[in-house]
């Protein structure tokens, strides 16, 4: 242990921590220096994945899992939007103030570092979390303490958190769609009509052409299709959904839970969208995200209200040990329903993000296409394809 004046610190918890910390530090510095959007985004992603590794080393597998999933989703979404933005950041007019900003940044970093170094050393009380292991198992009915904390001990925070997700998702849709919030889900029959109009036929009851591997594969420009990607997507989509369900139901006792499960499902949908385009997304998730989001919050907040009406404290969970003939003994904690609500809200967020940043941006870009500096009208009309 090192002693620096009033401070005490250990150089690292494990040697691997130092290596990963160095990667994160380097990635953060390079992010700040990058002038190319894509490069900056990827570097920030590296820092994020590094953080996940630090979480894992610290003994936080749930955090690491969630961080990896969130970081992946963030990366995909950012790249989807960056397709539309210019590749380089403009230099005007802040170049001159760069040193001032750098100085402010460095000072802030040093101040925060000092605080974070000093605060843990002045602790003289036992943290409340010493009781969590016993409480979580006795009253929460689960062995994964972090998950029990999220869906039971501090479920109130989680309700708030999913309402932030819901609001952000609707906000994204409102800014990208502007006024077509009630827009329909893009199903294959719409694509068929659109193609019919594009090729000069009369719109009507065109039978939708279904792809061999992905339902909406044929709606893509042949030049943009990748058979390998489509096959791969076909192969991994269902296992991913199964994995998500496994995470959802095992989360109480092992790493996982509603957030991670929702994010895995979201990533599975993302893969479908990337491989098969926006109609594939509509086929994979043929529901309006508003419905998914709303139902999720309705369920989670409803669990709280039901407990209240039943004479318990709000959001109080009950452990049910049921004996079901075929399945045998089932150990069920009612906070699972709460976690399902969380799961739904996360999926709703991802669908909303994909259909805004993915599908709607595709649609907006189609009638016009631009290269840098000039815009060229492309003679493709998408006819009935209005969201």
């Amino acid at each position, binding site marked *: 242990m090192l002693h620096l004046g009033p401070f005490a610190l250990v150089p690292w918890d494990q040697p691997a921590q130092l290596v990963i910390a160095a990667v*994160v530090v380097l990635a953060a510095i390079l992010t700040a220096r990058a002038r190319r959007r894509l490069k900056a985004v990827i570097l920030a992603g590296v820092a994020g994945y590094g953080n996940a590794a630090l979480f894992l080393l610290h003994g936080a597998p749930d955090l690491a899992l969630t961080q990896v999933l969130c970081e992946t989703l963030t990366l995909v979404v950012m790249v989807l939007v960056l397709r539309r933005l210019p590749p380089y950041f403009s230099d005007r007019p802040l170049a001159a103030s760069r040193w001032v900003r750098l100085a402010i940044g460095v000072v802030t970093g040093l101040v*925060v570092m000092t605080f974070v170094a000093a605060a843990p050393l002045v602790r003289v009380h036992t943290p409340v979390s010493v009781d969590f292991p016993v409480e979580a198992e006795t009253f929460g009915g689960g062995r994964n303490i972090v998950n029990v904390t999220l869906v039971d001990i501090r479920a109130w925070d989680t309700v708030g958190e999913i309402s932030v997700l819901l609001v952000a998702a609707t906000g994204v849709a409102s800014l990208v769609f502007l006024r077509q919030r009630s827009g329909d889900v893009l199903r294959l029959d719409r694509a068929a009509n659109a193609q019919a109009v594009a090729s000069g036929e009369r719109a009507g009851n065109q039978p939708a052409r279904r792809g061999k591997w992905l339902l909406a594969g044929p709606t893509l420009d042949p030049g943009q299709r990748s058979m390998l990607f489509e096959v791969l997507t076909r192969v991994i989509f269902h296992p991913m959904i199964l994995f998500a369900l496994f995470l959802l139901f095992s989360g109480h006792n092992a790493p996982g839970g509603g957030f991670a499960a929702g994010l895995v499902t979201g990533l599975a949908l993302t893969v479908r969208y990337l491989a098969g385009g926006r109609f594939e997304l509509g086929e994979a998730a043929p529901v309006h995200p508003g419905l998914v989001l709303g139902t999720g919050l309705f369920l989670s907040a409803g669990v709280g209200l039901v407990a209240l009406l039943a004479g318990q404290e709000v959001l109080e969970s009950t452990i049910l040990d049921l004996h079901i003939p075929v399945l045998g003994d089932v150990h069920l904690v009612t906070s699972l329903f709460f976690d399902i609500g969380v799961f739904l809200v996360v999926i709703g967020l991802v669908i909303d993000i994909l259909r805004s940043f993915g599908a709607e941006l595709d649609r907006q870009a189609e009638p016009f296409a631009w290269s840098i500096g000039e815009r060229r009208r492309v003679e493709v009309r998408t006819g009935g394809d209005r969201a």
Partner: protein
Amino acid sequence: MIVLDTVPSGALLLTVGVLFAAGVYLLLERSLTRVLLGFVLLGNGANLAILVAGGRAGAPPITGATAEPMSDPLAQAMVLTSIVITLALVAFVLAMAYRSWQLHGHDEVQDDLEDTRIARLADADAPSYADSDAEESGSTLDEEAVAVRDEVALPDRETPSGTTRGGEDA
């Protein structure tokens, strides 16, 4: 059994410091994409800071998995909440950056028009400090406003707002 040793790890402290420095540096930019990346880095830094606040590394907080002391589950729960909130806000700011690009052809935060107008009046020694009860025709103000708007808000009138237009005229 929870790890009670709170002596922080130097490697984590350094990471927190650098994430904050880089994050603040980016946050002071005008481009919303860079502001957003700054926010992402700051969020990561804050999450690490909370992890450090919970104490030193330990075993995963799953009862029965190991007999070693576990790392603090409460700090982890707080970090998890914060990761998810950050994800949601990142998505929203990204939508704002995209919308800003759609409107202006770039994603930079604009100055306030009214401030700019008052500053211009002051520069031109115009009667912004004179009592504004004095007669001042509305049309002048309008012209001013239009001029300011041209300069600040719309460098290129034919900027890609056409994307949405294109979608609509189908």
